[in-house]
């Protein structure tokens, strides 16, 4: 199979300077390739630098060493070719659902005449039609994150970056949103990097799972192909076997 490399990280390391003088290594020597139309899950415990990795790809942080390319071009800052879904939703409380998505289009300078149709399309896609005029505080956590997803999708980025998007949801809603993410992803196969600390979420969604080793600095541990048919059944024998393999090789607890 001929795979086109979409994102490539080459020996990326990141250090933060804390309190002016303290060097905190967060990522060490990460090399990673993400292929076109792939849903890659980065699985790691807390304090493994996975959010930092995603923020470097989003261009919100600069790597201390190494570089990351998107379609062969080095990433030098944030841009609309990468859509980011935040863990904490990040909606504007003073704007309606519709206006929150439209603001993304305005900021990405999408021509005005396309706004109405694009907003409708992506709100339909995430199943929020009928809620256009609601304010964020009137929505449940799952619905808020749907707005976040619609907003990130609406500018048609080349890559979707999802930073533990369902970390704040209850278990039931979370499972439902994972199914929804799979449905949305299947509908246009946008290259996606999905960050999580939840192994079931990783197995349900990922084409491939990359694990980061816990305790800073985060290092690449292993990569697992998940060749199971979608939608996946968490009680399936193969699913459980792979789950066992990954857990035994990875300390998910702190």
């Amino acid at each position, binding site marked *: 199979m001929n795979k086109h490399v979409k994102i490539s990280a080459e020996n990326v390391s990141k250090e933060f300077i804390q309190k002016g003088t303290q060097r905190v290594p967060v990522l060490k020597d990460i090399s990673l390739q993400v292929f076109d139309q792939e849903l890659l899950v980065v699985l790691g415990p807390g304090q493994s630098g996975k959010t930092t990795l995603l923020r470097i790809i989003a261009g919100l942080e600069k790597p201390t060493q190494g570089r990351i390319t998107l379609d062969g071009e080095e990433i030098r800052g*944030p841009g609309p070719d990468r859509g980011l879904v935040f863990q904490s939703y*990040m909606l*504007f409380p*003073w704007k309606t659902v519709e206006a929150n998505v439209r603001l*993304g289009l*305005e*900021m*990405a300078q999408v021509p005005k005449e396309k706004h109405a149709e694009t907003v409708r399309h992506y709100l339909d896609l995430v199943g929020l039609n009928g809620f256009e005029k609601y304010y964020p505080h009137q929505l449940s956590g799952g619905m808020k994150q749907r707005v976040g997803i619609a907003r990130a999708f609406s500018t048609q980025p080349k890559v979707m970056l999802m930073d533990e998007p369902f970390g704040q949801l209850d278990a039931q809603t979370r499972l439902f949103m994972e199914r929804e993410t799979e449905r949305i992803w299947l509908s246009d196969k946008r290259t996606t990097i999905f960050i999580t600390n939840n192994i079931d979420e990783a197995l349900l969604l990922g084409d491939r799972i990359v694990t980061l080793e816990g305790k800073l600095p985060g290092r690449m541990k292993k990569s697992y192909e998940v060749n199971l048919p979608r939608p996946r059944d968490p009680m399936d024998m193969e699913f459980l076997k792979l789950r066992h393999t990954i857990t035994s090789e990875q300390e998910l607890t702190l």
Partner: protein
Amino acid sequence: MAYQTVKARKSLKLRVLPWLSLTAVILIWQFCVSPPGVNDWRIPGVLLARPYDVLLLGIEKLTDVNPDGATLLVHAWVSLQESLSAFLLSLLVGIPLGLMMGWFGVVRGLFRPVFEMWRPIPPVAWIPLAIFWFGIGMEGKIFIIWLGGMTPCIINAYMGVKTTNPVHIQMARTFGASDWKIFTSICIPSALPMVFGALQIALGNCWTTLVAAELLASDQGLGYLITAGRSIGRTDIVVLGMISLGITGVIISQIIYRIEAKLLAGIRR
């Protein structure tokens, strides 16, 4: 389905208490001051007027221009004009300046040192210069009151922008938003609650600076009424001026509070 409408009411006690304390203060005041011409153990009338006399004077002053040259309503109207136009001017200048100082490094760099130097100088200290420049007309007073209103506008607008959620700004950056777009669509709305806080404070400042400005250079206005009362030894006129200032101040700040509550309904959630 529409929700059932219910009228929420404060308990009787909570509604009565403010009136009770107000009435008590007035009664005690009335009782503790001697009537004119009486000399007993109470506070003599030359030091403080009784509320009842002030009320009578207030009613009389609605039509009578003596002894200070204008009716009460004219004084109030002059003061209102001065303070409100200065208030609006300070909003117009201070808020945009503060907002820009919060977001644009160049503006901050240029204005911050000047602002820090200017801030500790009380507006009243400008009175001599204001008289040289504008005379004792309305412009000079507006200038002084304007100085008093500027500080809270600048500081609050500045802080409002500074306390914008940084992740909101990062989010905007991932969409490739321009600096100007981030400023107008994210920083300004985030700063609004602080800016509205500034309206209340600035109005308070304008109203108090007003009295100072009128005490020193004026021939009309509530502050002048107080000065006039002092110079002819009439405590009832002094107290009438003070009370008029208080009541008018309460009315304006209530109006601003209502407007604020309406405009911010969406943001404060």
